[in-house]
Each structure stands twice: as C-alpha cells, then as structure tokens.
C-alpha cells in the first residue's frame, strides 16, 4: 500500500511539473529576439542552435544560486578539496567507479525507454562485469575492455520524447536544473534502491539499507564536486555573471546530451 501511495505521489509530482511547464511555455514563452546584421547570414546557424533560455523565476533562482554559492565556498568546496588532497588518486578512482556502477541500472532503464538498445545493453554489461569481476564496481573492468556507454537519466528520456526543459531552476544544494530535469531527478532517485527506493527493492536486509544510502549519496556528491573544482574556480574568476554562465552551459549540455 505504501509503495502504491509513494508511486502515485511521485507520478503526480512529475505530471504536474510537465503539465505546468507545457502550459506556461505556450502562454508565456517568447522566443529570444536576436538581432543580427543582415550581411552575416552565418550567424543564423548559431541563432538556431541557441538554447532557448526560459527563466521566469530568475529572481528566486539568483537568490538560491547565491545561497548555494555561499554553502559551497564556506563548506562543500572545502570538503571536496580535502577529499581530493587527502584521498589517494587510485582510491578516489575506485570510489568513482563504485558510485557510478550503482547508478547504471537506472541509466540502462532510461536507455531502453528511449529505444537506445545498444547503449542499454552496453550499460547492463558494464554493470554485470564491474559488479562481479570488478569487485562490486570498484574496478572499471568493462570500460578498460572498451565497452563504452553513455549515461542516461529520466530528464533525458522525457527530452527524447519532446518534453521541453521548462523553466530553468536552481535547486538548493543541487544547483542548476530545469522543471523537466528536476522532475526526472526526483523520479530516478525515487525508484533507485540507492535513492529513496519507494519500491523497496532489495528489502532492508542488504547493503543498500537507508543508513548506507546517505553515505553513498554523500560520496557521489563529493566526487562530483571534486571533479568540478577547476571549472568552478574558472567560472568564479572569469565570468562577468557566473549565474548566466552556469545557466547557459547547463542548458547547452542538456540539449547536447538529449540529441545524442
């Protein structure tokens, strides 16, 4: 009963996100007007490719961005630096492989949902090989054998079927997102045994009990932040408006991931 209840809540949350954004886009969305000199028709290609920035909550988003930035500067960045400086590189690689491996089943499901059978199978073989031969995913044996896959999430699956990104969002502690991608994240995390596990996959008897989940998710977050140390430093130092830089980069990256 609890499962059905949780699932219903999850789906309705997601549906409301998708519906809300599609309505808002129809009514409010105005294509950005880029005025280009006529002699430069070559600019057109870029105008076509330009990510459609739809940021109706910019004021609130900027406040959350500032909050996240403070949280990061005074706490999380230091954690990531300590991790990078204090944990030897082979151990960090093992941790990255381990947390990445745990996310592969969800990634494979999303691949299949998009009809990307080859990528789905490659993802599954990575999971099976690395979980066994690679000792619970610590060693990326499949990757070294050349079995390459691309990660997929539910935001990408929705994008694949034509759901627009919707309003750009900055989520407290998580950073840049959009209503579609945040909805997708809630869905992925909701189902995943290492996330909220609303389906109670694997019961509570095995290693993905709730107390381990916090550890796994914290490690994932620290690993991601540590991998972004230089990029974030560059943006902070070089950008005339870091909020706009991150927004543009995020939206472009998502478009490219979905188009692939």
């Amino acid at each position, binding site marked *: 009963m609890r499962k059905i209840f949780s699932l219903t809540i999850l789906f309705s949350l997601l549906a409301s996100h998708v519906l809300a954004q599609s309505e808002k886009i129809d009514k409010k969305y105005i294509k950005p007007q880029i005025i280009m000199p006529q002699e430069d028709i070559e600019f*057109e290609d870029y105008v076509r490719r330009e990510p459609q920035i739809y940021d109706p909550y910019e004021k609130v988003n900027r406040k959350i961005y500032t909050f996240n930035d403070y949280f990061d500067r005074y706490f999380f960045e230091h954690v990531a630096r300590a991790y990078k400086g204090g944990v030897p590189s082979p151990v960090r690689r093992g941790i990255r492989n381990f947390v990445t491996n745990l996310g592969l089943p969800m990634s494979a499901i999303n691949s299949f949902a998009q009809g990307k059978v080859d990528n789905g199978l490659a993802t599954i073989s990575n999971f099976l090989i690395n979980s066994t031969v690679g000792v619970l995913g610590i060693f990326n044996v499949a990757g070294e054998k050349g079995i390459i896959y691309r990660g997929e999430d539910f935001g990408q699956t929705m994008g694949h079927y034509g759901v627009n990104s919707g309003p750009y969002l900055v989520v407290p502690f998580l950073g840049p997102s959009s209503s579609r991608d945040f909805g997708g994240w809630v869905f992925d995390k909701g189902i995943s045994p290492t996330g909220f596990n609303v389906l109670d996959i694997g019961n509570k008897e095995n290693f993905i009990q709730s107390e381990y989940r916090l550890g796994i998710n914290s490690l994932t977050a620290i690993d991601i932040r540590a991998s972004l140390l230089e990029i974030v430093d560059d943006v902070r*130092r070089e950008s005339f*408006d870091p909020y706009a830089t991150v927004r543009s*980069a995020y939206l472009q990256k998502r478009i*490219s991931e979905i188009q692939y």
Partner: protein
Amino acid sequence: MKKLLTLAIFALLPFQAFAQKADKEQVQIFVEGVGGKIISIANEKVSESKKKEKIIAIIDSVIDADWIAHFVLGKNYKTATDVQRNKFVKLYRDFMINTYGPKFKNYNGRKFIVNEVVEQGSFSVAKAEFLPRDSNVPISVDFRVKKRSDKLVIVDFIAEGISLIETQRSEFNSAITQEGMDGFLVRLEERVNKLKKGEAN
C-alpha cells in the same frame, strides 16, 4: 545550347564534389596543425611565461576575434554606439587571448587528432580528440572553423556540447542588461588590464 549547358553542369559536378572534399582535408590539416603546435609548445622546456606568450601568439593568429566579438555582443551590437562597439571589439581580442590562451599551456598531452570534419552551414566543424599525458580518457573538443578571405580561422571551441562563444554571449548579455553597456565596458577594461599584468590568471 541547352544540351551543352547540361553537359557543362555534369562535367563540373565532380569538380564541385572534389572541391568540398579538399576543403574538409584543408580544415583537418589546419586544426591538426594548430593542435600540434600547441602541444609541442606545452611540452617545451622553457619558462611558464615564455610558454604563455608563445601560445597566446598562436591563438591570436588563428581565431577571428573580430567576428567572435561581434557575435558575443549579440543583440547589444545593434544598440551600441560606434564608440562602444569599437572599444568592445578592441578589448575583446585582448580578453579572449589572455583568458583562454594560457589555459592551453597545460595541454602537454600525447596526441591530438581530428577524427572527422562535418559541414554545418557556412562552417566546418572539426571533431578533435586530445589525449592527456596522465590519462587514457581522451578529451573531445570541437573546433568551429570558417573561411575568411581565403584563410581558415577558428570561431568557436565546443567542449562536451558547450560552445564557448554561446556561453559568453549569454553571460555578456546578462551583464550588460544589469549594468549597462558603459558599466560593462569599464569592468572589461579593468579585467583586460589585470590579465595583461598577469594578475587575473
């Protein structure tokens, strides 16, 4: 007459195809040449400042900074006065080469290859791969190239689907909206001065 014309068109067709192919090869040679030069300088055993200077000179000679400046100003180009435009274009060149040039001095990798060249409108995109010295995972970067008066020039670097100039346009546009064109130009000038003195890197 009509027959003759048709014949002439058919006779020219293969040349047309050949011309395009040659272009792709030209782009590949050009981008591989640029990448090769950067890697060889990055691997040289000279002082960091000398490396930086050499790489900045290369970047300056292969990018079309005026075109990019025009592009990144986007809709603000139309509303800017001539004085503002000229000032921006002049500052932008220094900003671009001094911000991004020094980053390449760390590209002391093992290999730089162009996997393919694709045509996109009036641009060619060279899909390149760079293999760092300490890793087996190649980094992919796309170079957007165009022909400017018979010379090939680079107008964009695209890493992981993120275009440098699109991101910059979005950033500059947002900054100009908030502080006005003149306010932005003051900040840009301050930055360029710092970069030239080597303080901002």
